[in-house]
């Protein structure tokens, strides 16, 4: 009974956040119908939408809505209350022709979606990208490229969550120093099992007692970064909701770190095994170095798979949940009663999916960290002496 009790707050929290999330996404989805609302520029984050524009766009596009939520954005659309859009403008930082341009993304809110000679493409294949004004669809074709270092929605979420992570764990470290020699308490007792789990079941078991300590800072940071961003990605309202770990740039960077650490720490044994794989017939190595080629490709594919796995799992989860939301509106467009009927089923599925996503959030953090640790272990393993 007591064991069940301890899960109760977690379940209650999950249920509550799900409920809020469902309600919120429903509103967001409703707003999608009139979402191309880049009305005349204003520096305020509130925009009054004219009645005349309302309803002109008409059709609800499920694919567009889902992609908009999964992809990055130059501003953070927080909520829409009535006709007022609560949007947080984010800084745009551009490097063009050796010069740095920085301004808020709300500057693009005008007729041409342009500011200082740059355009935030409203449509087309480059939708959401910042290109040189007038370049249109073939931006890459002429002139120097625009390098976009903007603090986008996801970049902002990364910085915010990293700050959160730093605050959490530095305070936990403080608790460790304060409670020295005592049992853990509070937040400390929440994260301690996870830290011990990463240390014992991931690092020690994959890398070995002797060498695991060197990799602990990276593995712990990786694990908690992924799990925090996964969980916050499931939270539907403002500070959460950004699809951080479902963005390929984010997973790319983490996979590249794993790759670099593996390569830098690879010992002689590791490289010899790659060039001269043991236990393989010689003719697979000698005239045509087939195995070495396969192994060298393997060095790259390992982190590549890490990158794809996390990205695909998280993005897929978001897409499925958003798909269920879309169903309500697609059927709702046919008939209100049908939409209402479908919503019951949709919401049930969404809750199920969100619970599944909670599990996936943990599993993906575990898998990414475990595989990284395994690669480090492979790179640092000492040859067995017989």
């Amino acid at each position: 009974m007591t064991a069940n009790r301890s899960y109760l707050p977690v379940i209650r929290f999950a249920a509550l956040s799900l409920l809020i999330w469902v309600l919120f996404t429903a509103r967001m989805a409703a707003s999608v119908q009139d979402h191309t609302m880049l009305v005349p520029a204003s520096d305020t984050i509130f925009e009054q939408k004219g009645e005349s524009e309302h309803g002109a766009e008409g059709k609800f596009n499920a694919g567009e809505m889902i992609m908009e939520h999964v992809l990055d954005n130059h501003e953070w659309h927080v909520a829409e209350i009535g006709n007022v859009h609560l949007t947080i403008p984010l800084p745009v930082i551009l490097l063009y022709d050796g010069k740095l341009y920085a301004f808020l993304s709300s500057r693009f809110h005008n007729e041409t979606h342009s500011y200082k000679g740059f355009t935030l493409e409203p449509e087309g294949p480059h939708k959401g990208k910042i290109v040189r004004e007038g370049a249109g669809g073939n931006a890459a074709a002429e002139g120097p490229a625009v390098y976009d270092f903007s603090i986008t929605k996801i970049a902002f979420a990364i910085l915010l969550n990293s700050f959160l992570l730093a605050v959490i764990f530095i305070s936990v470290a403080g608790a460790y120093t304060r409670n020295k020699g005592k049992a853990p308490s509070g937040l400390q007792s929440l994260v301690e099992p996870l830290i011990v789990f990463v240390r014992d079941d991931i690092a020690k078991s994959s890398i070995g007692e002797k060498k695991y300590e060197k990799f602990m800072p990276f593995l712990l940071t990786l694990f908690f970064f992924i799990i925090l961003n996964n969980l916050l990605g499931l939270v539907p309202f403002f500070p959460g909701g950004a699809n951080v770990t479902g963005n390929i740039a984010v997973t790319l960077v983490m996979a590249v770190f794993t790759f670099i650490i593996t390569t830098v720490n690879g010992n002689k044994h590791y490289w010899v095994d790659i060039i001269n794989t043991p236990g393989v017939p010689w003719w697979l190595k000698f005239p045509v170095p087939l195995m070495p080629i396969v192994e060298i490709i393997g060095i790259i594919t390992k982190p590549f798979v890490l990158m794809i796995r996390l990205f695909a799992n998280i993005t897929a989860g978001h897409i499925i949940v958003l798909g269920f939301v879309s169903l309500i509106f697609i059927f709702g467009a046919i008939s209100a009663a049908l939409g209402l009927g479908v919503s019951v089923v949709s919401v049930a599925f969404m809750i199920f999916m969100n619970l599944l996503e909670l599990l996936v959030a943990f599993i993906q953090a575990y898998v990414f960290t475990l595989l990284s640790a395994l690669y480090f272990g492979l790179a640092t393993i000492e040859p067995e002496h017989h």
Partner: protein
Amino acid sequence: MELITPGLGLIFWMTLAFLFLVFVLGKFAWKPILLMLKEREVSIHEALNAANQAREEMKQLKFSNEQLLQEAKNERDAILNEARKIRDKMIEEARIKASEEASRIVEGAKASINNEKMAAMTELKNQIAESSLTLAKFILKRELSDPKKQEEYVQELLKEIKFN
């Protein structure tokens, strides 16, 4: 397509944030946390070991106590046995001694009785001799008168002196 095209800006910010996290957390969080965890584990391990050792010692102590008690009991029993034996022996000896003494006393008594008897006899003999002498004196006194009477008298006297 945008979904699987990593953005340059994001790569830049992510790299920056992640490196920052690894270094800051590595220095200010993971290092002290792992150190404390290790210290605590070591201290728990040591405490458990110490408890085990103490238990072992207690067991040993209890065992040796019991052994001591057992030894003491044995000793006591042995002493008691010994004492009993000594007592029995002493009683036996005393009895023997007593009976010896008794027989000696009896012997002594017998000897003294004998002596007494001998002394009595001697005295008797002396008495007899004396009486004989007295008798003889009387006889001698009467010798001058009638020899017949003498005879008679002697006979009479003899009758009187019938002592044995």
